[in-house]
C-alpha cells in the first residue's frame, strides 16, 4: 500500500503541480475539492493507473469523490486489483 501511495503521489506532483507550487501532497490532502487537480484533468491519472496496474477502473467508480485523496485512490486501486485476482 505504501508503495502504491508513493507512486500515486509522485504522479500527481509531476503531472499536476506547476513549478514553484508549494502544496505538499500528503495521503489525505484533498486533491479535487482542494483545487489541486480539477475533475477535467483527473482522466490522465485514471489512465495512468489503468496502464501501470493493468486494471480497468469503471467510469462509475472514477468519481471526484473517489479520486479526492491519495488514500482513497489507493484504496480504489487495491480493491479493483484484488477483485481482478480473486
Amino acid at each position, binding site marked *: 500500500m505504501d508503495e502504491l501511495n508513493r507512486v500515486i503521489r509522485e504522479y500527481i506532483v509531476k503531472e*499536476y503541480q506547476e513549478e514553484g507550487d508549494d502544496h505538499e501532497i500528503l495521503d489525505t490532502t484533498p486533491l479535487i475539492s482542494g483545487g489541486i487537480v480539477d475533475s*477535467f484533468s483527473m*482522466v*490522465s491519472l485514471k*489512465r495512468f493507473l489503468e496502464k501501470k496496474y493493468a486494471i480497468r477502473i469503471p467510469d462509475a467508480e472514477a468519481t471526484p469523490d473517489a479520486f479526492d485523496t491519495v488514500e482513497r485512490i489507493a484504496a480504489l486501486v487495491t480493491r479493483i486489483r484484488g477483485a481482478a485476482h480473486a
Partner: protein
Amino acid sequence: MGPAAVTEPHIAAVREHYRQELEAARAAGLLREERFIHSPQAAEIEVEFPAGAAPRRVVNMCSNNYLGLSSHPEVIAAARAGLDARGYGLSSVRFICGTQDIHRELEERLTAFLGTEATLLFPSCMDANAGVFEALFGEPDVLIADRLVHASIVDGMRLCKAMQDTFKHSDMAHLEEKLIEHRDRRFRVVVTDGVFSMDGDLAKLDEIVALAERHGALVFVDDSHATGFMGRTGRGTHEQKGVFGKIDLITTTLGKALGGASGGCVSGRAELVAMCRQRARPYLFSNTVPPVIVAGALKVLELIGRTTERRDALERNTLYWRRLLTEAGFDIKPGESPIVPVMLYNAKLAQDVARDLFAEGIYVVGFFFPVVAKGLARIRTQLSAAHETRHLECAIEAFVKVGRKYDILGKDKKAILEAYGA
C-alpha cells in the same frame, strides 16, 4: 389571478433543498447577484446596485466591449435597417427555413476575416464549443486541452466520445509528451484558448502550431477574447503569433468585440465545417441567429476592416492601464491583452476591494474559486477602445485609494497572503 399556492410535499421538499443551498452560498459570500444597468453598454454606465438603489454613473472596467462597438451609432443603424429589411425572427432552425442571404454573407465575411476556409454560425460561442467536438471526433481520437481553457470547451469536450487529456497551462514540453503518448490515436487535437479569459495571457500559438505540425496533430483555438483586436489588423491570436491561416479550427464570438450582442461560429478547414453543418447539435436544434444581429455584425466587420483605429486605441489603453497599475504597486498578471487581472489572492479581499471601488465610481468584479483556482482570487479589469484617458486616470485614483486602505500596494503574493490568508 396568480397561480394557486403549491402545497404538495414533494414540491415543498425540492424548494427547501434549494433554499438551503442558496442560503449556504449567501452565507459563504459566494452568491452571484446581478447588477441592473440602466444605460447602453459603454465606458460609463448607470448601475443600480444593490437592487433598489438609485442608479449611479460609474466607469465600466469589466465588460467585453473591447472595441467599444456595442452601442456604436453605425452598428445600431445597420441593425435597425436589418430589422426592417429581414424581420425580427425566423421562427426556424437554419436548415429548415432559417437561413437568409445575410447569414451566408456573414459566414463568408468571417471566413475572410479569420483567414480560414469556411464558417458556420451558431447562436453563441458556447453553442459552437458545445457542438464542434462531438460533431467531428470520436472514440479513436484524442483531445488534448490546456488546463485553463474556458468552461464551455470543457463542457463541449465532455459531450464528445474522444479520449480526453490535458496539458499544464502553456507548458509546451508537457504538451509534446502528451502528443507522443497519444501517437496511436487516429486524430490528435490540441485544444486551447487564444487569450485566456481569467489570466489574460496568450496561448503560445506559434509553438503549438510547430508542435502540431511535427506530430501530425490538429489545432483548435477559441479566440473569443481576441477576435477583432489581437494582431496588427485585429484578426486574432493567430495573427499576433504569426500563424494566420494555420489554425485548423477556430471558434469565436460576436458577443464581445464584434458588437457584443450574441452569436458565435466555428471556422476552419472546409470539410470540418461542412461536417459541423451536418452534425453539430446546437446548430441543428436551435434557432438561427436573428437578422438584426447578423446585420449589426456585418457592419462591425465593415468598420474594423476599414481602419485599425479602434484596436490601436485599445492597445494604447491596455499599455497605459498596465503601466498605471504597475507604477502604483499593484500585483498584476503580466501580458499584452486588454484583460488585466489585479491579483488579491484572498476571496473576501477581492470582494471587499470590488465593493469599495464601486463606491468610488469604478465598476469591477472580484473573481474567486471555483471561477479561478483557490488562493488566486483577483479583480479582472478589462480595457475598451471606448475608454478615454480620463476614465483610466479616474480608475487608478480609486484603485490607489482602496489599495492604500487595504495596505496592498507594493505587496507581492506572499505579503498579501500573510496579511489576509488564502
